[in-house]
């Protein structure tokens, strides 16, 4: 069993981390890179496969050399055995299409993965295209919005529960032959209902702690030549997407006056209640009519 998780480094958009210039453009240099938050669902699903079915688990990313640290961080959370980074100036400014071609080629070079997991969208591009497009390039079945997963190695099938149209109310169960590509939904819940699963989980954690200390020793870096990729089909040249312009979303005006009242300030609380009483009276009046 060989499982690969596709992951991406993204700017840390959390308050206090992200920084924008005066025109509202992201300052990449001043904003730290972190693993795409939505990839954690893919990691959870891949980890479940590693714990329950064993085998080798690899993490793969495409991006600048700095993404190596993102992969190292991922190694610890998903107990990965090895890391692959596709990194090359020729690949800069790839859109999802060019990225998919590159990743699919890299996945073929890794060997013969049985399952590939991808996050459902990145926090920067938000397209949700790269995973499915990569899968399309490989010509594998794809199951999206997966919330629960069972792998049967004997029959080489994967059975998944998925949200239809991404709706939590409607769940269907589907099967696909392996190799296959899985896009985990944020609702994905790993299931470890056997004691042996949890014991394996503990073993892997202990094993990985040592390995993650020195994650670079377990990382393979490839450029476009290693992958035998034609520069015309990758990077900016291979990217048909044209971004015409980006408009910042204006901040909602918040100019209402606010008075802070501590919960133990009895007088203040009484004033709040007094102020609220007319509204309460209106509501109950309406209900009574």
């Amino acid at each position, binding site marked *: 069993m060989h499982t690969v998780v596709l992951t991406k480094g993204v700017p840390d958009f959390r308050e206090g981390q992200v920084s924008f210039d005066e025109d509202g453009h992201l300052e990449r240099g001043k904003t730290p890179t972190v693993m795409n938050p939505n990839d954690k669902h893919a990691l959870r699903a891949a980890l479940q496969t590693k714990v329950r079915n064993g085998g080798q688990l690899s993490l793969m990313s495409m991006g600048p050399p700095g993404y190596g640290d993102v992969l190292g961080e991922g190694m610890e959370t998903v107990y990965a055995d090895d890391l692959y980074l596709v990194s090359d100036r020729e690949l800069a400014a790839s859109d999802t299409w060019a990225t998919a071609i590159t990743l699919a080629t890299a996945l073929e070079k890794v060997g013969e993965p049985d399952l590939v997991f991808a996050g459902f969208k990145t926090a920067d591009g938000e397209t949700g295209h790269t995973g499915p497009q990569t899968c399309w390039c490989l010509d594998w079945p794809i199951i999206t919005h997966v919330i629960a997963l069972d792998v049967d190695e004997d029959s080489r099938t994967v059975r998944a529960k998925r949200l239809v149209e991404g709706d939590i109310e409607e769940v269907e169960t589907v099967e696909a032959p392996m190799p296959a590509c899985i896009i985990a939904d944020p609702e994905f819940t790993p299931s470890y209902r056997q004691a042996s699963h*949890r*014991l394996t989980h503990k073993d892997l954690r202990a094993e990985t702690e040592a390995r993650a200390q020195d994650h670079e020793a377990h990382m393979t870096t490839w450029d476009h030549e290693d992958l035998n990729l034609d520069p015309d089909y990758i990077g900016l040249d291979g990217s048909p997407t044209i971004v015409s312009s980006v408009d910042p979303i204006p901040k909602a005006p918040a100019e209402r006056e606010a008075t802070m009242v501590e919960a133990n300030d009895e007088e203040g609380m009484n004033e709040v209640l007094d102020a609220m009483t007319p509204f309460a009276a209106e509501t109950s009046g309406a209900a009574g009519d």
Partner: protein
Amino acid sequence: MAEHEHYEAIVVGCGPGGATAAATLARNGVETLVLERGVEAGSKNVSGGVIYAEDSAPYTIDDLFPDFREEAAERPITHNYIHNIAGEKVKTFDLTEIHEHDTEWADAVLRRRMDSWLETRVHEMTREAGGGVLTGVRANGLYRENGEIVGVTTDELEPITGDLIVAADGVNSELARDAGLMDWESPDEWFQGVKAIVDMPDGAIEERFDITEEQGETHLFSGDLYEGVRGGGFLYTNEDTLSIGNVFHLDSIVEERAEVVDLLDALLTHPLLAQWIGDDYEELEYSAKLVPDSKKVAHPSPTEDRLVLVGDAAGQMQAQGPLIKGMNHAATAGALVGEAFAVARSRGDTASAGERYVSRLYDEGVMAKIRPAVYDRSRAVTEHRRVSALTDGLIDTAIGRAGLDTMIRTGIVERLYNSPRMMQILPDTTTPYATLPTAIAKRHGERIEEESAVEPPTLEERIGELTYDTDIGNPHIVVEDESWEASGAAVTACPVSAKDFGGGCYREEVRSNGYEERVVSFDSQPCVECGTCAIVADTRWEHPRGGKGVEFKQG
């Protein structure tokens, strides 16, 4: 029959009983799965706590875990005292002799540190034998096939079967109750312990107790500071903290409607303790636990089908006067279970493990210590109400006082305190706990000149300092009868409730629906999982799911 995950042995609970059982099983190559409901072993455990290694015990905890004393314990206990208190007068006796009786060593312990250390060792040992320790998994009952106990059910996993199931799940063992071996019926079969862990500045313990870093002390307290509630107090020296608490008979707490938190504060603020605690009181943790009275509830045959009980789950907790021993008996019982199973297995007869364990408990003298026949024989007389009233009355007469004077002068009192046999027949009446110590202190005690500057935290602050992972919307205790008659006792007996405190588990409420009705209202959030209300109130009582509920950092 459904196929289930199977281990040769399943051990529920990773305290001293579970740990020694699992270690012995693993050493004999038995595939052993240990299920611990805390986030880490020790996070659910509370004890006084001093752990003993008895000369006469077939196994002590350091037999199975050689580095135990260096790595998991606090201080070796080298001096022991009991203080009889009457107001501000105190008469102290040296108890070192009885503590050294049959004692190879005794160490103060804090359970989070101790049990989590054991967990790591046990996991290494059991993993090698094909099992391991899982934390955050709560066994909630027994799994039966055709009426026979063959495994356990849990909140987190599918049912698991085993050839041996060891219930080492503590005083409120859900497995022992599922098997019908233990109940929660009578308050007179239990003690309740309440404890504070007090932080001490560097070097203060050595200075204030006048001991070295390799020495430690236990102090016991009895007399009139508990308003007639039967029980006593303790103070143990840890590495850089003190364990200070009380242990009372639960029936006495209920009868007196005693606020157990006030009784703890009565001890903490007594002037006698000022010399040790000092002026800056910093409490690290407030905790509580039920203690089975082994004289009455140690199960004479703690086994059923493939199930065996060890430690508190089997009521194996010896509390006889100043002798309070539980963890050592749990450790011995655990090792005996492991050995019994290994022998049974080598004969191809794993079904006989339970019986073999029970006969070892008797052959090795464990049962004789925890459930002495002499107590059963003597209690009919010594605990008879009229006898108790007579002795209590006699102590306060001229003859009684004269006798007492002689006994103290000639050292008889100290000798009696230090007599193991005397302690075995000590009656559960007010005489030894309050009447006698008070009389002794009144006539022979020295007045304590020091004043206490200790200001204990309020119950609200104590609860606020505890760590909880509340299982919101899924309370583990349900009050089945909220009438005052059925459950009112919990308002004072529950260590995290008090009559005039609205933030505890149990609160008094008067409802008026045309007529006035006195009831209790309940909130499981502040629960410290001691089990008191399982006995004194009408509840459906379970532990929270794995990893949920209170998490003790000291224990």
